[in-house]
């Protein structure tokens, strides 16, 4: 249900709507410390290549040599030297001649011709390597701590672009629990709209299979009762003798939010949250676990007008991609969890004609290595839980250190080149990016450019400028765009 302005409608309605929007902007200006957009007029935004963005987040540090950047394969042998291990999976061909990826990702291999693979993403050394700090950096573009609460990438899109469909929340975050997991406070610190305020914050759906509940009337309330309750609310507001006490803006903003909520809860778009509605055979393809179901949910949400959806394999310290031990076996399982859902997501979007206008990103806070922590010359503590020189047990076999000098990012759709390889890491340790390094700041600039947002977009908060890419300095990697 997309509301278009009827060309026959009287001019005044259009204008009133416009004034409402203006009202929202001026409240922001009025509130103490609220951010104000600056240079809205003369800043030129690039032409958008994508309308929606899906970030597939491999939380915990996805090892590039175990996924998208295979190196010399060293099969498990008792007594092998740890430093002989670069990759624990052999490489396989993909649909692109010059791109090989790791065995276990056979389905993704088939769709590599729909996207661009960057192998030279880099992260700064932040002293002690901490997932949540690097994740904060990746998601906000700023290294924590910051003097103001930095907004999440999704909140930037929600703030600058809004939803594709008025009914849908612009920023939806799938798969990450924010309670009951380690480092939850650190996760919350960047899973937020920060100084933009919660209007632009994430709708958090940690369990994709339960997403439908969050847009349904409360358990046990019939649709009839729900509709009557809303009617009653309306009547009480209309009868209220004090309708004019607050500024019209304040009342309007409140009523608009209630309206928006009611509209979403009554809309056909709310069905998008219900993955049970997919045919059984589709559900089966996606159902490799919570992440797989999240990919299916993301597809449905984007089909219905969400602007930014993040789906994560979930960051929980020492679980999933956070392989401090037993790396090979864990990644083997993760391959199975991500391979089919990701490739199916790409194919589904393509089939629906949405891929060209949807940017799908596979990324992680950093890569991993069997022996090197951080990057060459880093003073970061070695955080492997089993420090051995020789691999005597399966649990030693894997990439158990955090590596920040060469990380893979895969991009599909959204105007990126098809079947393109950008950047390169060394073939022997240290596996650093040796061609076209891409910083977090430039990666952000690239993503925002695809979405039609200038990397120099800035807001003033507490009297200082705050840019969508760090200090407005992000330069998009234009080479990856078609």
């Amino acid at each position, binding site marked *: 249900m997309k509301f278009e302005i009827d060309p026959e409608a009287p001019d005044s309605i259009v204008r009133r709507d416009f004034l409402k929007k203006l009202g929202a902007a*001026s*409240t922001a200006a*009025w*509130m*103490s*410390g609220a951010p104000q957009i600056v240079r809205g007029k003369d800043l030129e935004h690039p032409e958008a290549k994508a309308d929606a963005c899906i970030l597939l987040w491999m939380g915990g540090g996805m090892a590039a040599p175990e996924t998208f950047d295979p190196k010399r394969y060293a099969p498990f042998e008792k007594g092998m030297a740890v430093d002989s291990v670069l990759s624990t999976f052999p490489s396989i061909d993909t649909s692109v001649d010059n791109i090989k990826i790791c065995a276990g990702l056979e389905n993704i291999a088939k769709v590599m011709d729909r996207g661009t693979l960057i192998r030279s993403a880099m992260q700064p050394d932040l*002293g*002690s390597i*901490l997932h949540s*700090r690097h994740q904060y950096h990746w998601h906000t573009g700023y290294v*924590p*701590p910051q*003097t*103001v*609460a930095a907004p999440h990438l999704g909140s930037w899109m929600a703030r600058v672009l809004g939803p594709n469909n008025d009914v849908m*929340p612009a920023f939806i975050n799938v798969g990450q629990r*924010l309670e009951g997991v380690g480092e939850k*406070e*650190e996760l919350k*610190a960047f899973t*937020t709209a920060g100084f933009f*305020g*919660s*209007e632009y*914050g994430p*709708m*958090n759906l940690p369990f994709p299979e339960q997403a439908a*509940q969050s847009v349904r009337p*409360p358990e046990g*309330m019939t649709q009839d009762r729900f509709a*009557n*309750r809303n009617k*009653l*609310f309306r*009547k009480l*507001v209309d*009868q*209220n*003798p*004090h*309708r004019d*006490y*607050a*500024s*019209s*803006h*304040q009342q309007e*903003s*409140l*009523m608009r*939010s*209630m309206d928006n*909520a*009611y509209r*979403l*809860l009554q809309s056909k778009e709310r069905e998008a949250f219900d993955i049970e509605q997919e045919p059984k055979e589709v559900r089966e393809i996606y159902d490799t676990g919570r992440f797989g179901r999240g990919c299916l949910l993301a597809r449905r949400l984007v089909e219905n007008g969400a602007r930014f959806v993040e789906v994560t394999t979930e960051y929980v310290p020492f679980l999933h991609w956070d392989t401090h031990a037993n790396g090979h076996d864990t990644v083997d399982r993760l391959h199975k969890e991500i391979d089919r859902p990701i490739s199916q997501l790409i194919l589904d979007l393509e089939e629906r004609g949405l891929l060209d206008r949807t940017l799908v990103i596979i990324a992680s806070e950093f890569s991993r290595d069997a022996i090197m922590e951080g990057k060459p010359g880093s003073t970061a503590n070695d955080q492997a839980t089993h420090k051995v020189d020789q691999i005597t047990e399966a649990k030693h076999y894997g990439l158990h250190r955090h590596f920040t000098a060469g990380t893979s990012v895969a991009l599909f759709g959204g105007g990126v080149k098809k079947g393109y390889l950008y950047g390169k890491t060394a073939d022997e340790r240290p596996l650093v990016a040796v061609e076209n390094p891409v910083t977090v700041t430039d990666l952000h600039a690239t993503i925002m450019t695809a979405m039609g947002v200038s990397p120099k977009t800035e807001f003033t908060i507490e*009297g*200082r*400028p705050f840019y969508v890419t760090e200090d*407005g300095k992000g330069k998009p990697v234009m080479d990856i765009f078609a």
Partner: protein
Amino acid sequence: MSCFSAHAAVDFAHDVVPILEKHCTECHGGEEAEGGFSLNTRDLFLDDETAVPGRADESYFIDLILDTDPDYQMPPEKKKRVPDEQLAVLKQWVNEGMKWEPGFTFGEPAYEPRFAPRRPELPAVTDGRTNPVDRIMDHYLATEKLERPDPVDDATFFRRVSLDLIGLLPSAEETRKFLADTAPDKRTKVIDEFLSRDLSYTDHWLTFWNDLLRNDYGGTGFITGGRTQISTWLYDSLKTNKPFDAMVRELIAPPNKESAGFINGIKWRGTVSAGQTLPIQFSQSISQSFLGINMKCASCHDSFIDRWTLADAYGLAAIYAEEDLEIHRCDKPINETARAAWLFPEIGQVDAKADKEERLKQLANLMTHPENGRVPRTLVNRLWGQLMGRGIVHPLDAMQTEPWNVDLLDWLASDFQENGYDLKHTLRTIATSAAYQSATSNEFDETGSDAYRYSGPLPKRLTAEQFVDATWQITQAAPTSYHAPIVRGIVPPELVDRLSFPSSWVWGPSVDQGLPPHGEKILLRREFIPSKPVRAAGVIAAADNAFVLHLNHQQILSGERWSDLEAAPVTQKISKGTNLILMVAENRGPKPNAAGAFCAVRLEYEDGTDEIIVTDDKWTVSETVPNGNRTGQWKLKEMKWEPARVLPNTTWKKQTDARIGQTLAEASVGSDHMVRAALLKADDLMRSLGRPNRDQIVTSRPNELTTLEAVDLSTSETLIRNLKKGAETLMSQPDLAPAQLIEELYLTTLTRFPTEEESSVLKEALGTKPTVEDVTDILWALTMTPEFLITR
């Protein structure tokens, strides 16, 4: 344009300034710093070799002026180029060393607020309005030819002042009483009464101070030991209305660790930028909280927005630093060591050579010095903002901004100082003024602070804490325990010892056959008669896996974690005759497993003796549990009862026994005060309603409702469950006719009687036989109205 002679040296003020003003400062001067570049001062101009004195050919800004690439050239593509002869002036000026008028800045000539205290003469009294605030305001309104806002009616005043001073909705009963009171001074009396409710006042203002001092009970840094709370100290300070100057002294120069968390900031793991080290956090925090200065800009480079410089920021930081502090500009060292100094040397300076403890003491003394007018101004401005919806200086953290009424600010600040920095005194002064007791303004200030004209207090959206507290008041669904490490009553240690005893756990007859089945529900029952008059009473309980406890047919406690001792004060609920405890306990899990229930009631008699009633074989148990929770209608006599089985299991005891004394003591000495949202860690709802993370200092709360909040409020099952409880409570009152019920609903939620139109809408909704669902939905609709969410 001046005549330019190739031979004469360039004159900065006459030759250079006009060129820079014509072509550059629109974007790079004053408050503008496009691309992060400002040429307000010479130092700023030299940043990143934008200009190199003596070397025009190496100066980046000259290159940019010469550049013809539309992406790079300056001024930007669509602006006029710098004419050749002017460019020549700039080059010559650079080559001659870039002479700059000392102290000259392209920054706006900023308003410089007075630092010293000032007590303005009070204008004459008009119309018998004697409150000093009104004397100043009436004079202001007359001078500015502004209309005096209408006075507000009693009901609106009562709701507003209750929310502002203690953060709670008045109950229907309190409202009736207040409205019926005919005493002329009833408003002042109620203000005094609210301010004297120490616990309610503290619970409410805790939110303001936690925000201001970025204190919380969990969050970044707490887990890793990089941060400590000041909660216990803060709660005590508010409870005893500690003078604000004493609070500032104890925060800046902590006498012990209780108040040390504020200056110690957050120690982040890993490396942090130079702008976030502990000394710099200290500099930023004390500047923002107490001086209304944003030192965040100046801790990286000389500020573009006010007069503070990098040296000022580091001077403050060096007061706190343990070791020599190297100054960094934009994260790069500049080979200078900071010298400890504070910002207003006119009243004295910190001795840079003294040790840290002494330096902090000296700073604390300067902050609370009688000649320091800035600290009291900053604070009274915040209090005014809390009550009136907007500061006299706006924004609250930018005290260099011109106030819209300097006399009002100066008078309130000096009055605050002269009255011993008494927070309640200033709150009382504002709340008793006719200005505060005026109708709210619905004029929206759309133009920014310059054009602001006072037209009455502004409506304020309920804070996250106020909203949550209000729903708990309406529904009586407040939790029974909280996270803040504070004691709301006073618990003597010997009492804790006296009330410590080993727990005893019971279950029903199913234990005779081994493990109780999963899903089994039992009903435990105990009757008792107090042997003497009761002074105080409290109850604690826990169960594996879940329980609901009723005392005299009122639900008192519930819990779903066997390791949590739930507790509640029940002094008012104990009757002189027979008292009845009913505890429904439930065993959960996928298969039969251990189950147990524990409860203890403490009766403190007026003669100082105790009686403790604890789950044992004097309790009886029924294996059938009636439906619903209206225990008054349960036919207990018709049910089959047998003695409860006392269990030998020790796992539960290990978890709970050590906490019994403290919990039971707090429950029975603590008053019947409802647990408040400010005492809990932020949950999703509070977060979405705008409670900040408190990683940073955030001194104002959002004024609007967002769509996601509205979705939450529309779909929340917890909210509906709670509202249903509230509906049941309202409907449990005997013989309540629909008209009375409607009146009760309005008084409870909106602190006023309904209009005829509103009554008829509700009459229709209730029908002839109102159901709990009807009342639940009315409660929901009323609590979502703008009138509920935005305080008039």
